[in-house]
């Protein structure tokens, strides 16, 4: 019966949607807490301590504060764009959870196009960032969004090129297939260069230090979200932390064998790998100064892209070579 099918699908959407949103919120709260703790330990501090055990409830208190704030439209902003931008930044990132294999058969939709789908959708969030900067009617915000667009265009190329090697080696774009292909050895072993390029490019895509030039607070006050406050600001924040999680999850799936691992269940392994990568990203942020925008572009075009192309070339040769001798 088609009607039962429709009802089933709707229920499925609601169920998965709720789970994903719930997970994202809790995850973002946890990541903010983790970032505070990691940065504190790196910086000879102790971080939040007083609200809840080890300050775990601190971020919840902060979230409640942000939610309870009045939603302000600053004077002379473009209201529609200003309203739309945070949603546009946050929503596309959710799409990544659709194809993420969290464990054996733990996948919402095992799409044929897999990662291509995620990369094409998450790019929409940069349009959101540009709208945010443009509609804010603030020069700092505009400068921040200008930088964001330039950065996105430059780093999208090495990001995709670096995954190309993995996809070629696995022979599929499907995420379950990619994990299955890493049964023997993880792709980080066979594609170390691709992993490094992917890590750099995904840091830039997530606007994380040392590539955080769109929101460089010492230069542009707060960059593209200078004029945002309350829950709208929280959406940008949520988007940023979810993007970190997603890019770590993609790297874990592509390069670290996804949910595969001995003894523990798949989900546990998956989360361990993701949070280990998140830790590395935080570690990098709290160690390095920020690049300048032109240096950032130079890094993408002069270093990452040539090496990514080299990686694709070498991988292709290896595959051809393999066939030749078999």
């Amino acid at each position, binding site marked *: 019966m088609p009607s039962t099918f429709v009802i089933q699908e709707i229920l499925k959407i609601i169920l998965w949607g709720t789970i994903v949103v719930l997970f994202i919120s809790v995850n973002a709260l946890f990541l903010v807490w983790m970032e505070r703790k990691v940065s504190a330990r790196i*910086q000879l501090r102790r971080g939040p301590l007083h609200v809840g055990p080890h300050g775990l409830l601190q971020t919840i208190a902060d979230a409640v504060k942000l939610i309870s704030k009045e939603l302000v439209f600053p004077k002379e902003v473009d209201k529609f764009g200003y309203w739309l931008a945070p949603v546009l930044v946050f929503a596309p990132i959710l799409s990544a959870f659709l194809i993420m294999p969290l464990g054996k058969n733990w996948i919402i939709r095992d799409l044929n196009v897999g990662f291509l789908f995620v990369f094409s959708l998450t790019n929409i969030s940069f349009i959101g960032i540009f709208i945010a900067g443009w509609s804010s009617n603030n020069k700092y915000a505009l400068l921040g969004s*200008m930088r964001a667009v330039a950065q996105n265009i430059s780093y999208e190329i090495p990001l995709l090129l670096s995954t190309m090697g993995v996809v070629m080696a696995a022979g599929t774009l499907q995420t379950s297939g990619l994990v299955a292909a890493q049964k023997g050895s993880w792709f980080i072993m066979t594609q170390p260069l691709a992993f490094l390029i992917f890590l750099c490019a995904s840091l830039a895509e997530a606007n994380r230090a040392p590539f955080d030039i769109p929101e*460089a607070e*010492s*230069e542009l*006050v707060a960059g593209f979200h200078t004029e945002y406050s309350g829950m709208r600001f929280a959406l940008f924040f949520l988007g940023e932390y979810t993007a970190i999680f997603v890019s770590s999850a993609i790297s874990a799936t592509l390069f670290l064998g996804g949910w595969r691992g001995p003894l523990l269940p798949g989900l546990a392994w998956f989360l361990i790998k993701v949070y280990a990568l998140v830790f590395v990203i935080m570690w990098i942020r709290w160690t390095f*100064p*920020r*690049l*300048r925008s032109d240096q950032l572009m130079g890094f993408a075009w002069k270093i990452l892209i040539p090496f990514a192309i080299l990686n694709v070339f070498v991988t292709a040769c290896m595959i051809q070579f393999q066939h030749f001798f078999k």
Partner: protein
Amino acid sequence: MPTLTEKNIKNWLLELIKPDEFNEKDPKASGVLFEAIVPQSKIREVAKGYLEQHYFLESLTAVDFAECLEIVYHFNQWGPAQRSCVKILVPKETNTAPSIASIYKSANWFEREVYDMFGAIFTDHPNLKRILLPESSDIFPLLKSFKGEPKGADVAQSLKLIQEDADGFTTQYKDTVILQDKKNSKDYYLNLGPQHPSTHGVLRVLLHLDGERVIDGQPIIGYSHRHHEKMMEIQNYVGCWPNMGRLDYVGAMSYNFGYAVLVEKAMGIQPPPRVEAIRVLTTELNRIASHLLWIGTFLLDLGAFTPFFYCFDDREKILDILEMATGERLTYDYFRFGGLDKDIPPEMVPAIKEFIPRFKARLRDYDALITKNIIFRKRTEGLGIISKESALAYGVTGPSLRASGVAFDLRRNEPYSIYPELDFNIPTRAEGDVFARYWIRTKEMEESLKIVSQIIDKIPAGEVTLGKLPKNVPKGEYYSAVEAARGSFGIYLVSDGSLNPYRIKLRTPSFSNLNAIGDMLPGCLVSDVVAVLGSIDIVLPEIDR
């Protein structure tokens, strides 16, 4: 380059002026070799001559006497102190003087300040506007005739003026090539500050931008002006001490030192050896603390958060140590004429001894974390170069000058206190870029630590005060300068023999150093602006006074 000797300068000046307008001075007391009163018409010629001889304009100020306004120029050279004092007289009726801003770029701001405080009009000055007081004010507070209460600033009026100010900057550039091309609408103006994370206080930099590229930038100061000079005029000499801690709150000890040296020279007194040792000890510790704060905030400007906390951790230790002696953590008010406020407590010496090895290890950490970081090097090398010529024209001093390859440090060039007996180097670097300025400051911390370790075991015993001293300074004019953390801090004192200073001019180093930024900004990106601004190490309360 051959520089004129003292005698040559003298002969050259004597050709220009009458012999009775030339007075030899005792440099030990007054800080200047001679004083010459030059006719107004010849001051530009004199200034040109000094620039040709590679003298820099150390200070330019005015003193209001009953019969006329005296404009006082102090020229000094990058070498053993050869300070000369040149004056012009401005009659009250005309109230105009020729500007030397086209000769010495540093005179631009100095002359604006004189206009601001005394109302003297400098003819041919490119931009004679108020600099420290708001443009809406109609007072000239340093004139002796100024008595009344200042009128409260009218907010609406001030806002209007701020707008006019911004418009004025736009119109100023209407004539230039950039805006003549009306189709080219890419360029715009951006106010960096007064509220901005990286201006280190309330500084406003009006940037003219093309995309992210800076066409021109102009610092606008005066937001934290408290008028220390006026305050000190209406206090007695002892009452001026707290002002010294509040000029540059990051390196306040050097400012204490400057005032102590000035008045002691003028009175002709010699502090006991214990006092001298403790003064140098605390000043050098404070210099380390100041440089640490700079490194932390500078790296923060570049987007690295972590060094900030390490620097503040070390600085905290120094503040703890200095707190033991002074009871204060920031705005020190510790020195007294011929002595100190109180002796150091016995627990301070072991605390310093514990600090020295700890800090040495930390310096290695900074080296590994910052100096060897490739992103840091790429961000700072070859950026914001101050050439020697530019440094001379702007009167740049301190680490910013030494990063341009000039070994000019008043602790060596115009020795005071026990510095001649101490073993330390003056680090210099030829590049003159942002990285060189960073490097100089890290090396200076090492040198200061060396001084501290030399003194710590050899603090002589004895009194820390000279007992009762006269309450006034003998009639005369005095100039004295010390090496503060940011450059040479000079005080020009005119005493009429009464209990209050007749006129005190505070020559603060960052005032001249910040002025030099106008030459460094064009061509930078916005990211570089904060790096360049951070690299010259400005403390706004010291600039605005």
